[in-house]
């Protein structure tokens, strides 16, 4: 026998590291086959169903509401109006008062006297079946006295505009300012502009988007004595529990919230929904289990929307391309009410407009504006896609103004690798990265030189199909967040995360996380981390989440925080487990704890290989507890709460090559390459998946999706026939790559990847489209780049205008009055 085959030394080889392996996700089989509990699968004895009558008018007073006929319908148990619930419904919470004088008119779960957007709840029917509840809605009689409808932000902020809420003095909820000069993180912005050789100003429109998660929202509430269990398709069971307790007065310890498997959220389920509160109130009244599941139409019309900003952005620079100052003014559409973090979304973006560039001066202002539309709130990227779009678009505009290569202007101004950690003009400390390296790698992936040559050929031959190349060299802040920073921004919660590890007698491991997955793959990634930390097999780890009775403390999943904050809490808990086990192992090995080393799941005395005890054996020993050192508790379970000291800052270079058919305006992505730096990669397969999904959504904003209201405030894109979510067949192949610069704010070195693709891609696509047709006189095209808009921009000038039928003033998101289409008409 050779030494290599000696079984003793083979056993001593530590298992291969799990972190870094492209493990297939252990949760996927049940998620994909549906062999799991989605909230709408829940069936409870005696369960009743709730259906909601929704306002067909955007703004009006309820002058007559008669539910008596509905009460007589078969299988109807009860019918309630806002008046019935007015005393107990309170207001849905807004956890982010971004300024001390922010105006929050309050947000009833069901309208009492006035409706402020189409789709607002007006009455609810509780019946023995879902269909009976839906049928009875038709028997409810309501009259509305119409009020003037406020839709256009730029008109809404004018003196004399009709008001969304007559209790307020204007439609402006708040005015938020960040001024680097005043904050001491930069110089005076006005001076910078006064001194600059060149200034470029643009107005960009971030259209309104709909998160469009796959699983519709659903909630079930089961009362049991004075206790309540709520199942909800939510991203935030922990936050929901706190908020629902505060809104309804049900004591927090009497309320358990469970998010079972949840089919996507993208921020759209980072919410305390009216229907969650209504189900609780009705379950309390009737003492029966209540279920509500939305239809897709309800989802598109009433679940919160995203984006919807008008951005005015000015950049100051010298002729050689060195940037001198940045000024941003936003109008951000709140919709009719402030939901959980509605006002905070644009504020989250406030610190990211400077992007990766060394601006010496920066000023940001934002008005939150009420309109008669469904509220906006978090949507994948929340604030950062808006900021990234504006800065990456204006850097191209600056390059055009200066006659420089767009990449050259970026190179001249970006933070160099040796300058990290770098404190930006917005006061953020960027942790690590190398923008040059990512860019070089992305250029190579794309085959840049060949495509530039082809572009030239197409231009010269006047080809009807023109080619363009667009860049986005982005960074973002994620890993929400240091609690102190959140506190300084008046956010209503901290940013820590919790984890605990339970060592079972058979050596199996239960990991409880406060981070709540809804499709991201936490169970796999957490298992990989724990397998490495404890030296146990990947298969021996089970990850528990989403039930406040199991995972008592947590702040859930959003803002690319799960791995960075929640994963780190798991690491910290595992370290504690090892330290507790070390004491017991030392006792069992009759050695000094300080002499033990721990590798591959095994404690052994340093310098004495062979002899040792595995951590899984320690788990059994301490379960029996027949023999353990005095003065310690017989347990090696541990928990940890991690509060990061800084955000992490993923970055990357995304390059899009776009073909534009100048005859029809049809835009088609020819090639897409991106290199992302998301720090240390725990699972490359999951990272790739997150990048792909993010790209799909970011490209969708650039090219396909837009929530459009008509002049009366009806959502005209109320089904997937009109709200165009692209399918795989509409998207190109993605060439992806990575550079790795570890985050410095967490021991994993991970930076978060959930939003990166979505944040980065949108401006790359629009820049590419413009690059294809700029030589034909086009200077801007409004998103999404519908063929008609591109065609109008090409043949009529302007930005292609609104996606609206002539003669109506339907519009997407922000506003119509300056539309390119109207210009084109003249």
């Amino acid at each position, binding site marked *: 026998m050779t030494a290599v085959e000696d079984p003793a030394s083979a056993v001593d080889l530590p298992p291969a590291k799990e972190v870094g392996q492209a493990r297939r996700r252990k949760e996927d089989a049940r998620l994909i086959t549906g062999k799991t509990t989605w909230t709408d699968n829940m069936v409870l004895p005696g369960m009743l169903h709730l259906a909601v009558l929704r306002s067909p008018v955007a703004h009006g007073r309820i002058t007559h509401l008669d539910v008596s006929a509905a009460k007589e319908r078969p299988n109807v148990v009860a019918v309630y109006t806002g008046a019935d619930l007015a005393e107990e419904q309170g207001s849905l919470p807004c956890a982010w008062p971004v300024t001390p004088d922010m105006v929050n008119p309050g947000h009833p779960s069901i309208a009492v006297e006035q409706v402020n957007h189409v789709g607002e709840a007006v009455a609810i029917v509780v019946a023995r079946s879902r269909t009976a509840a*839906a049928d009875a809605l038709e028997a409810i009689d309501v009259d509305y006295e119409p009020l003037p409808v406020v839709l256009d932000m730029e008109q809404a902020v004018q003196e004399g505009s009709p008001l969304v809420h007559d209790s307020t003095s204007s439609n402006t909820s708040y005015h938020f300012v960040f001024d680097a000069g005043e904050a001491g993180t930069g110089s005076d912005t006005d001076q910078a502009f006064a001194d600059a050789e060149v200034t470029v100003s643009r107005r960009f429109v971030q259209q309104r988007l709909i998160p469009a998660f796959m699983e519709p929202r659903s909630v079930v509430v089961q009362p049991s004595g004075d206790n309540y269990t709520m199942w909800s398709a939510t991203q935030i069971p922990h936050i929901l529990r706190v908020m629902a307790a505060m809104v309804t007065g049900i004591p927090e310890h009497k309320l358990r919230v469970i998010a079972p498997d949840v089919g996507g959220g993208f921020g759209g389920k980072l919410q305390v929904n009216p229907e969650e509160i209504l189900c609780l109130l009705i379950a309390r009244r009737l003492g029966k289990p209540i279920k509500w599941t939305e239809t897709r139409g309800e989802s598109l019309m009433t679940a919160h929307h995203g984006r919807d900003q008008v951005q005015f952005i000015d950049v100051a620079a010298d002729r050689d391309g060195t940037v001198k100052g940045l000024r941003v003014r936003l109008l951000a559409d709140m919709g009719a009410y402030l939901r959980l973090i509605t006002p905070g979304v644009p504020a989250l973006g406030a610190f990211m407009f400077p992007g990766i560039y060394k601006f010496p001066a920066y000023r940001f202002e934002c008005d939150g504006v009420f309109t008669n539309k469904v509220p906006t709130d978090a949507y994948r990227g929340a604030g950062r896609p808006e900021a990234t779009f504006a800065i990456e678009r204006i850097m191209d505009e600056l390059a055009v103004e200066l006659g420089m290569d767009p990449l050259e202007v970026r190179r001249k101004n970006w933070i160099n690798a040796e300058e990290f950690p770098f404190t930006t003009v917005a006061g953020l400390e960027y942790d690590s990265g190398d923008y040059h390296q990512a860019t070089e790698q992305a250029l190579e992936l794309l085959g840049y030189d060949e495509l530039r040559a082809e572009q030239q050929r197409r231009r010269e031959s006047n080809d009807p199909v023109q080619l363009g190349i667009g860049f986005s060299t982005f960074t973002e802040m994620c890993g929400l967040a240091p609690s102190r920073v959140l506190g300084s921004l008046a956010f209503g919660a901290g940013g820590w995360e919790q984890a605990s590890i339970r060592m079972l007698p058979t050596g199996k491991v239960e990991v409880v996380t406060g981070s709540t997955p809804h499709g991201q793959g936490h169970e796999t990634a957490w298992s990989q981390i724990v397998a490495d930390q404890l030296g146990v097999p990947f298969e021996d780890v089970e990850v528990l989440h989403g039930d406040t009775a199991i995972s008592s403390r947590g702040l859930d999943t959003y803002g690319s925080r799960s791995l960075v904050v929640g994963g780190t809490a798991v690491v910290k808990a595992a370290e504690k487990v090892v330290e507790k086990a070390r004491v017991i192992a030392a006792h069992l090995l009759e050695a000094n704890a300080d002499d033990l080393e721990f590798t591959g799941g095994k404690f052994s005395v340093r310098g004495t290989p062979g002899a040792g005890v595995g951590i899984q054996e320690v788990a059994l020993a301490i379960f029996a507890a027949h023999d353990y050192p005095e003065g310690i508790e017989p347990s090696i379970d541990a928990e940890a709460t991690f509060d990061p000291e800084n955000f992490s800052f993923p970055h990357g270079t995304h390059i899009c090559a776009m073909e534009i058919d100048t*005859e029809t305006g049809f835009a088609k992505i020819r090639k897409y390459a991106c290199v992302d730096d998301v720090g240390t990669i725990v699972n490359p397969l999951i990272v790739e998946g997150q990048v792909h999904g993010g790209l799909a959504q970011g490209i969708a904003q650039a090219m396909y999706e837009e929530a459009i209201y008509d002049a009366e405030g009806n959502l005209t894109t109320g089904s997937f026939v009109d709200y165009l979510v692209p399918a795989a*067949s509409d998207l190109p192949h993605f060439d992806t790559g990575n550079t790795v610069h570890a985050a410095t704010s967490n021991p994993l070195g991970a930076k978060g990847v959930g939003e990166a693709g979505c944040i980065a891609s949108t401006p790359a696509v629009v820049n590419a489209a413009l690059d294809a047709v700029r030589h034909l006189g086009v200077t801007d095209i409004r998103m999404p780049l519908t*063929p008609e808009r591109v065609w109008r921009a090409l043949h009529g000038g302007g930005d292609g205008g609104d996606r609206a039928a002539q003669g109506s003033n339907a519009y997407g998101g922000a506003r119509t009055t300056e539309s390119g289409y109207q210009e084109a008409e003249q």
Partner: protein
Amino acid sequence: MIPAPFAYARPTTVEEALQAIAEGGEDVKVLAGGQSLIPVMRLRLAAPELLVDLTRVEELRGVREDGDTLVIGAMTTHADVLADPLLAQYGQLIVQATETVADRQVRRRGTFGGALAHADPAGDLPAVALALDAEFVLVGPGGRRTVSAAEFFVDYLTTALEEGELLVEIRVPKLGEGWGVRYEKFNRVAQAWSIVAVAAAVRRQGGRIAEARIGLTNMGPTPLRASATEAALVGVDVSMETVTAAAAQAAEGTSPSNDLNAQADYRQHLAQVLTRRALAAAAGL
């Protein structure tokens, strides 16, 4: 998204179906693949009292030859159309258009007859039927009659079908030797309806165009023929110049709608571009 209550009948023959419809009273709807009808019922825009489901009426399903004519049963699904050997040989224009309809799931249920009876101007098959001068065979309490495609499409979502009448089959000429076809569809994402589409069939004789048939999708409340273009092509040389010149007349006499997908002037522009492209492909240019 939950339809109002309705009664349901599932006959197995045309005769039983007609009887069920006759006895059903005022508010009867025929259910074919349900891909257009069920969505409007779920939105409660339609609330029939009785649905007569034709999916078990075997005699309405399938494709057969009758001399120079292909006879397509109304209940032949889009998926059947794509798999049918006769259509593969003589009905490529129908096949090409059907390939662009929605997605696999919808094509498995949706039917040729249902798509025509629904008469949505954005639907892909009406313009094809019109371009082919299809004949529609209708059966009702008053017996059997045949109407031409030009007569069948009356207005937006309105056909020549009388109350109580069923569309049973559609007769189209075989396009054999000498014919080239192309369905040119313009939409934003793969599974979406046409913003505009053009169905073109061109018969070449030597270096000349002997005959051209052009149907326009979504250029008015009903499918339309691009008659001026068709006329301009007869007898001309097959060349990009002649095709381009003729295609420039494709929007003549059209009255497309303004909607979220496109305004009328843009649709008219598209009709010209797409007609040129469809003709070029059909003529083998």
